[in-house]
């Protein structure tokens, strides 16, 4: 499918009287790698939730992968997330006591594929992130960097065109963080659109595109 993967036009999000995001316009083409930066409270998380279709805008129009989100029911949004969007969170969100292979396989749990297929895909994804030797390890047996790579493998299972990463290196030391960033860059190289939400300007400054948020508004954009 052609056309932009994400298109926000005058999108606002209000929580009661507080404006978290104020008429944001943003166009993300397929295959882009970009950073959304800003201090805490600038509306980064709100933007992530809206692009990730986890929250609906209070005003403006939003199109994801050609779908007008306002016209979709909650069930349809769930289906959109299942096949179009992968998420990586700062806290990894790995189920304790579940082997890495099964955690990753759950990335396709709601995609209607059989368990055998999901596990085969999961093994492939874990090898792709360099964890082929850690298939049966439990989360607490893995380092922080390895845990985040498991989370990335889960997010990209089924090859969603859009990957949203929320502070993916926030809980990691610089070496593990760099490894995760390399991995995200590699996925981008494979054609996935990668959106990285971060407050770390060093990370943002090396990416091809940077969207800077301030007080719920898109303050400026930098392209390199």
């Amino acid at each position, binding site marked *: *499918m052609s056309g932009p993967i994400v298109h926000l036009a005058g999108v606002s999000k209000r929580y009661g009287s507080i404006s978290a995001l104020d008429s944001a316009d943003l166009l993300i083409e397929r295959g882009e790698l970009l950073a959304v930066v800003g201090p805490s409270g600038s509306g980064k998380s709100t933007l992530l*939730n809206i692009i*990730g279709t*986890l*929250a609906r805008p209070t005003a403006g129009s939003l199109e994801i*992968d*050609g*779908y*007008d989100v306002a016209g*979709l029911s*909650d*069930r*349809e*949004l*769930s*289906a*959109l*997330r*299942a*096949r179009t*969007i992968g*998420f990586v*969170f700062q*806290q990894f*969100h790995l*189920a*304790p*006591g*579940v082997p890495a292979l099964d955690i990753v396989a*759950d*990335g396709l*749990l*709601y*995609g*209607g*594929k*059989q*368990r055998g297929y999901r596990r085969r895909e999961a093994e492939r994804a874990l090898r792709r992130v360099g964890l082929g030797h850690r298939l049966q390890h439990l989360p607490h047996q893995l380092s922080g960097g390895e845990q985040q790579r498991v989370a990335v493998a*889960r997010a990209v299972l089924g090859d969603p065109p859009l990957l949203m990463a929320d502070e993916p290196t926030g809980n990691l030391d610089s070496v593990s963080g760099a490894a995760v960033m390399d991995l995200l860059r590699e996925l981008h190289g494979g054609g996935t659109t990668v959106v990285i939400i971060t407050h770390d300007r060093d990370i943002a400054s090396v990416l091809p595109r940077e969207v800077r948020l301030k007080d719920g508004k898109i303050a400026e954009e930098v392209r390199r």
Partner: protein
Amino acid sequence: MSAPRLKPARMWPADVIRVGGYGLRSRPLRGILSALGIAIGIAAMVGVVGISASSAHEIERRLSAFGTNLLTVSPGQSFGDEPVHLPDTAIGMITAIPGVESVSAVGRTEARIYRNDHIPERQTGGIIVYAARTDLPSVIRSRTAVGAWLTEATGRYPTVVLGSAAASSLAVIETGPDSLVWLGGRWFTVVGILAPNDLISDFDYGAFVGWPEARAQLAFDGHPTTIYTRAAESAVTTVQPLLGATANPEDPGEVDVSRPSDALAAKQETEKTLRALLLGLGGVALLVGGVGVANTMVISVLERRSEIGLRRSLGATRGQIRTQFLAEALLLSLLGGLGGVVLGIGITAIFATAQSWSTVVPAWAMAGGILATLFIGGLAGFYPAVRAARMPPTEALANP
């Protein structure tokens, strides 16, 4: 719009069960404890039903062994002081009633029986000495555990047959010429010991002497005190009202007619009432168990907000989240229910074996137990599941 319609994929049933079991796998102790509540309730209910079914089975067995067609006739109370007797002709008259199959009788004597001649006179042990006809065992369906019943020959000599309890209180365990008891001031030889009779338990404390010997040696007046009548099964209800007038035509009101099996049947009725009460108590236990499961589920939903958020971000619909928590509650209850049924069968088996009954647990009790747990589980899981499904994904993913 050119894009195809979005439709969430259905989960495979195996996946629904696997995801439903996730909470149980990650916190097994909590799961087991909350399932235990259900298990206790179900075990109580299955146990109550099982024990009463085993008991009813036992009563049925006794009823069919001793028959429900036995009728007894005995002298009633008179208004005056003089003792009431059944006429000597009563046995013959009753035999002539159509539908009567067999008739026998005993006569109560005032004689006392002791282990030996050194026992003080007051220590009778509550044993009653009866004059008995030789055809008595065939009518009341008693059999001897040791030795043999009185015959025309032994009934003319100082011989005695003891009831089971009487034999043990007199410390008699065998029969024969060396087995003697002190009866009515002379030695009697024990020729037989009866097996317990559930229908006429008075006879367990009885000692039986031949009719002629009782008249000759024990000052027995020859009047029967109880007449035992077997009627044809189909004729019991027609024979019963005739017995009084037939036994004592001059004074039918002074005759008591009864049907010993009525007592066993009444016992069965009483147990049914008791069973309903105990079942109610088991139901309360089950309800408490259900509240335990509901409590566990509510806490579980609150604790697992981030898991719910993650699943929503992976594409789970509200319905799939609801199904997951409902399945978890059902699984917990089912686990408890199965454990409870096994426990209930165990309790029944132990109790029944201790009473030397056969163990009977009706299939409907087991199936009903499992169904009840599924119902309770569904009820307990419904509200937490709805709450989990309603949780907005952003709130669920927010940092704790």
